[in-house]
């Protein structure tokens, strides 16, 4: 069963009198264990695509099955539950809570999940996720005490905490220098190697080359869907 199956997805924004078709009939399937880079210039519809795939937004028409479940008609609260349990977000600007320790940040999604874990169980799980990204020794650091790359790795740990079906990364290296970008991409490759499905939104071709498959957007349509021929592999994965 596909992790993502999208059929004829349309998203129309009403800007006053004018209708903007941000997504105009997109169909796409992503199987478990894939590492897909979504590319396109600004205005191509890739952000709208990411909002819908991330269950932050609903399509105007078309179907979206996440992990076999139709999520295109769900209301706010149900989508929140889906985001919490099945999707791990990684954002361009990290989006960690300020003045909050790395461990507390990683633990945050568990607060809103219905898992019913005890406080010590949540701690332990958050700690394991920090170990995966190699930051267990920084668990008591606040975001302001961490470098950009470290902050992004904390964000990845947070995305992993509920063992999601899908990791959705929106320009995760946009705020990072080349070296740290490589580092962070290494973390994604490692997670993918371990079986995680990763969808990466980016406009940089060299970042997209870390994935296994590239899909291209232009004017709200899918214009490219190719495997990565010469995949860039990060040698020293965290």
């Amino acid at each position: 069963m596909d992790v993502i199956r999208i059929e004829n997805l349309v998203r129309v924004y009403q800007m006053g009198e004018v209708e903007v078709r941000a997504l105009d009939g997109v169909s796409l399937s992503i199987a478990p264990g894939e590492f897909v880079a979504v590319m396109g210039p600004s205005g191509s519809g890739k952000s709208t695509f990411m909002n819908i795939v991330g269950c932050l937004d609903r399509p105007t028409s078309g179907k979206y099955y996440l992990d076999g479940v139709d999520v295109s008609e769900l209301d706010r609260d149900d989508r929140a539950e889906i985001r919490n349990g099945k999707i791990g977000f990684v954002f361009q600007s990290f989006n960690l809570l300020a003045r909050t320790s790395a461990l507390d940040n990683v633990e945050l999604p568990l607060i809103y999940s219905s898992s019913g874990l005890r406080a010590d169980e949540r701690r332990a799980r958050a700690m394991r996720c920090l170990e995966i990204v190699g930051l267990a020794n920084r668990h008591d650091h606040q975001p302001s005490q961490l470098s950009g790359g470290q902050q992004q790795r904390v964000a990845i740990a947070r995305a992993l905490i509920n063992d999601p079906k899908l990791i959705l990364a929106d320009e995760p290296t946009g705020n990072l220098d080349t070296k740290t970008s490589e580092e962070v991409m290494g973390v994604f490759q490692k997670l993918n190697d371990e079986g995680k499905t990763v969808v990466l939104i980016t406009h940089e071709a060299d970042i997209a080359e870390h994935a296994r498959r590239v899909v291209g957007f232009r004017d709200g349509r899918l214009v490219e869907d190719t495997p990565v021929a010469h995949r860039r592999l990060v040698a020293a994965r965290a």
Partner: protein
Amino acid sequence: MLKFLTILKVGLKAIARNKLRSALTALGIIIGVACVIAMIGVGQGSQAAIQAQISALGTNFLMIFPGVATQSGARIFTGQSTITEDDVAAVGTECPAVAYVTPVSRSAAQVVAGNLNWGTSIQGVGVEWPFVRSWNVDKGAMFGDSEVRAAAKVCLLGSTVADALFEGQDPVGQTVRIKNFPFRVIGVLETKGGNTMGQDQDDVVIAPYTTVMRLLKGTTKIDMFMASAVSQNAVPEAQKQIEALLRQRHRLQPGQDSDFMIRSQQEIAQTADETSRTLSVLLASAASISLLVGGIGIMNIMLVSVTERTREIGIRMAIGAKGRDILTQFLIEALALSIAGGAIGIALGVGASRFLAWKAHWPIMLSPEAVGLAFGFSAAIGIFFGFYPARKASLLDPIEALRYE
């Protein structure tokens, strides 16, 4: 439940993160609740004090003053005594609702004992006076009918006078001089304390009214008389009977103004009670306004906080917080601020009340109900003023909120 506790912790952490701002926000509630508590304490205290004094005075007690005349339409007290000793005796025997009566003739004089003297009021009364006033003789005995008939120079001292003139010695059997007449002290009255107006009731000398009237004042007319009804409920009836009897005895036509006035202790009590109640309500409402202002302060800060933390709200929503989770979190913050403010305010208010009681000798009384009410009110203010900002936060769109800088 587990989730609620966790969100509770999140809310409390947010408060702890902004200590100064949280403290300043709570300050509005603290001052409001402290004011309400202190004002209720003062109000209830004075009301209770008045009640206590009134019941000590006896609530079935009536005073009948002579002489209200109409002059150019203005009802004034002329001071012309129209009430006679016979009137008093008639009220005593002919009004079934009246239990006891006593004529009163008042004077003021310097009382001298040895080398000490004391200026006080001299009350000339009849033998039933202790029953009318429910005021007992502590030492010695009340004078009897023969002393009244003979206008005997005997007196009883109020405890303040006894202390002033005899300084702890037993005054009974001693002689005091009033306006140069020697009076034998035959008793000391029990201590009564201050009255409704705060005057010392024990600063008094009691003597037969005949003696005060003829010897000290040189008149044959009494000043007024007092009566007591058979029970508290019989007061209105006694009042009616006295009025009817006196009008008949004074040959007043229907429609003509009475040449006397009757004042019951109940009326005085009611007036005093209403005055203090009005005062309490006034004080409490002034204090409530400050509580309201404190509530608006909470709303203000919570609104600022929602705007300032839009991104945080967006992050929380993106990773799975539902609208009601955000609502709960912000409501808890508002509620925690107002409850903490309420608790500190109660402590401060109780402290202020104690301070007033101790420093200004104000009678302070704080009922647990008042404290509970103030606390509940501050919590209600937290929910009321916290709800709008919390709801605003819960309705944010996660995509917009995440984009917010």
